[in-house]
């Protein structure tokens, strides 16, 4: 069989990484987007997204790429993925109008036997509503992780494929493409696949919420969550890859969207989603941990404190600031002078009346009364505690993601605050604002 030609409509973070993986696996890949600016940039090798390994992957496979704004160029594709973003509002509600319009556009230009695969995050029931012959229409769960997108696209754990008729084998072109990746392929009905995506995220949120809830307790009762989590991972029922790192609540937009979808469906169909709402409440509560710590430990005693903030992106290795805990914190610090640094996100992303953008993490710490490490960029691990102690005016280091070695920070004469363990105080230090 001649290798199928794979098309991707929507040069989003998802689309670019998926296309890169297809081309790297030896497939002619057509990349379509209605935005001429995006296509022009991609043709000249410029990326507006940050993903480790992506530029190299694209460069290695560049002879197999065709970038286009013409729908007609998708006509010779055997499989076309819809990889557009589905925007959400502040409540996590998806706006499906754009993706429907794109699907209509693409469908009109598809080859007669081409397979259309919906790769976007859509609510259960969406795929079945599309007006394309169902034997040519599939839904495939995407498992993009910002910061690990190349790894996830090149080496998927499995493919979850939503189909109209389970008794039919996958079309040869589609099956041949997926088989190249050497992982299990799990066909199921459309709604199951659509809900599988949401279910994966719910399981992850459940795990993280357990970590957050118990880590908060650790902070009060003198336990250390970092001692507990490895023990849990050795339990086969929990597993070595369980998401048990405490964090500052949900961010990025995708998890929040899926929780909102579950609540909406539960309300409509009369099922219980109380636990999902509890996860969302816990996320909101945990998101403000850094703000509460700053107020309790620094600002109550030092109303004119200068605050250094490291990290603006919502997580490391990404340019995205959607639902960023860092920006949410900064929005609550308007009365104070800030010194900010992020390796990728410019200081112009910060809406604050008195925020100085700094070229390095150490420069952001210069003269700061408190340093808050809000995004766990790997580069921040290179900070030396004694350098920080010499640079800072105050001595509070608030490091929710445990980027630094707390003991080293305390040995350098600083107080250290992180998730999952009570505050570590330098010798001679006392609680900033006593009862």
């Amino acid at each position: 069989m001649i290798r199928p030609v794979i098309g991707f409509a929507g040069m989003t973070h998802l689309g670019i990484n998926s296309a890169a993986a297809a081309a790297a696996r030896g497939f002619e890949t057509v990349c379509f987007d209605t935005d001429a600016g995006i296509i022009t940039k991609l043709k000249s090798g410029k990326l507006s997204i940050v993903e480790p390994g992506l530029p190299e992957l694209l460069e290695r496979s560049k002879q197999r790429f065709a970038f286009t704004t013409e729908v007609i160029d998708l006509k010779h594709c055997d499989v076309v993925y819809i990889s557009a973003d589905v925007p959400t509002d502040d409540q996590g509600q998806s706006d499906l109008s754009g993706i429907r319009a794109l699907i209509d556009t693409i469908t009109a230009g598809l080859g007669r036997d081409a397979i259309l695969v919906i790769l976007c995050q859509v609510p259960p029931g969406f795929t079945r509503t599309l007006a394309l012959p169902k034997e040519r229409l599939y839904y495939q769960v995407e498992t993009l992780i910002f910061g690990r997108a190349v790894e996830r696209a090149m080496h998927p754990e499995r493919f979850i494929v939503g189909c109209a008729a389970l008794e039919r084998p996958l079309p040869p072109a589609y099956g041949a493409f997926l088989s190249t990746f050497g992982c299990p392929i799990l066909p199921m009905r459309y709604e199951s696949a659509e809900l599988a995506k949401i279910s994966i995220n719910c399981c992850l949120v459940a795990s993280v919420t357990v970590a957050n809830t118990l880590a908060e307790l650790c902070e009060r009762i003198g336990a250390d969550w970092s001692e507990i989590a490895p023990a849990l991972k050795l339990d086969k029922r929990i597993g070595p890859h369980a998401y048990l790192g405490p964090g500052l609540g949900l961010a990025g937009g995708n998890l929040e969207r899926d929780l909102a979808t579950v609540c909406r469906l539960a309300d409509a169909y009369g099922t219980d989603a109380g636990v999902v709402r509890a996860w969302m409440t816990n996320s909101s509560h945990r998101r403000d941990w850094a703000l509460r710590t700053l107020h309790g430990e620094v600002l109550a005693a030092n109303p004119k404190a200068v605050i250094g903030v490291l990290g603006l992106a919502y997580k490391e290795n990404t340019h995205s600031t959607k639902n960023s805990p860092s920006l949410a914190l900064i929005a609550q610090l308007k009365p104070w002078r800030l010194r900010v640094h992020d390796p990728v996100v410019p200081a112009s992303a910060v809406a604050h009346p008195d925020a100085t953008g700094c070229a390095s993490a150490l420069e952001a710490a210069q003269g700061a009364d408190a340093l808050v490490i809000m995004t766990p960029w790997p580069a921040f691990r290179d900070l030396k505690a004694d350098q920080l102690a010499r640079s800072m005016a105050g001595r509070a280091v608030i490091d929710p993601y445990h980027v630094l070695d707390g003991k080293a920070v305390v040995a350098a004469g600083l107080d250290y605050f992180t998730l999952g363990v009570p505050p570590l105080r330098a010798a001679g230090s006392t609680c900033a604002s006593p009862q």
Partner: protein
Amino acid sequence: MLNHLNEKPVNPTRVVLLGARGFIGRTLVSVLQRAGIAALPVSSADLNLATDGAADRLAAMLQHHDAVVMLAALTPDKGRGLQPFLTNIHMAASLCGALGKVTPAQVVYLSSDSVYPIATSLVSEASCAEPDDLYGMMHLAREMMVKSATKAPVAVLRSTLVYGAEDTHNSYGPNRLCRMAHKDGKITLFGEGEETRDHILVDDVAALTMLVLRHCSIGTLNLATGRSISYAELAKKVAVLLDKPIDIIGTSRQTPITHRHFDVTAIHKAFPTFNFTPLDKGLAKAHAEMLRRG
């Protein structure tokens, strides 16, 4: 959560305080006077809101530029049963009747954390208000009545236990423990004093209310410090204020241990530069004032 109509603080033209002779009312009147803000203190002696015709008499006092602060209530020491409930609702109905005739610039309703069930140990403004008794139900009902009765911006402030030298209610808290220590030379606790509660100095309640008035805030805010303490610990802090040894005595427990903590992130967001009086300092201040008054 609170939203502010005035991003920068602006003094209200006049503040009408209903329940001005009460513990919090007196403090707020003093603060307003020190700030040079015109105030019309109204007590039950001036206008009994629980009487017929009170709505019309109150409406005649109100002007459109007024900020109205509703503090008037029969407090729990007057009973938590049906009669005080009905009297309190009558008072609110009178206020609502007046608000129906005159729309002021702002209404601030001083409510209580009793709207939250005691089973909710960590309370925020997002917590479900499901009162355990008629007193809490009264406040929740009055919140709703006021919000429904007026087009003016309404701020609901749900306060935790308030303490200060002038508190006469003798509820189980710093004031009572202090008086006990002075009078009896000992402090008697329920159980071993395991329950934790948040105590806020009346000065801080007044200061936060002033911020709400100046910012013309809308929404709901819990007034609490975010730091709860057990009664056993509180007793120890009170005991050190006296210059004589004070025994702290436990009793056999009659009711289950309950706890109440507050997530005060909403205060940090609404008024980022506001700092609470630390409990040690507040207790010392209240104690010193108590001694001065004899």
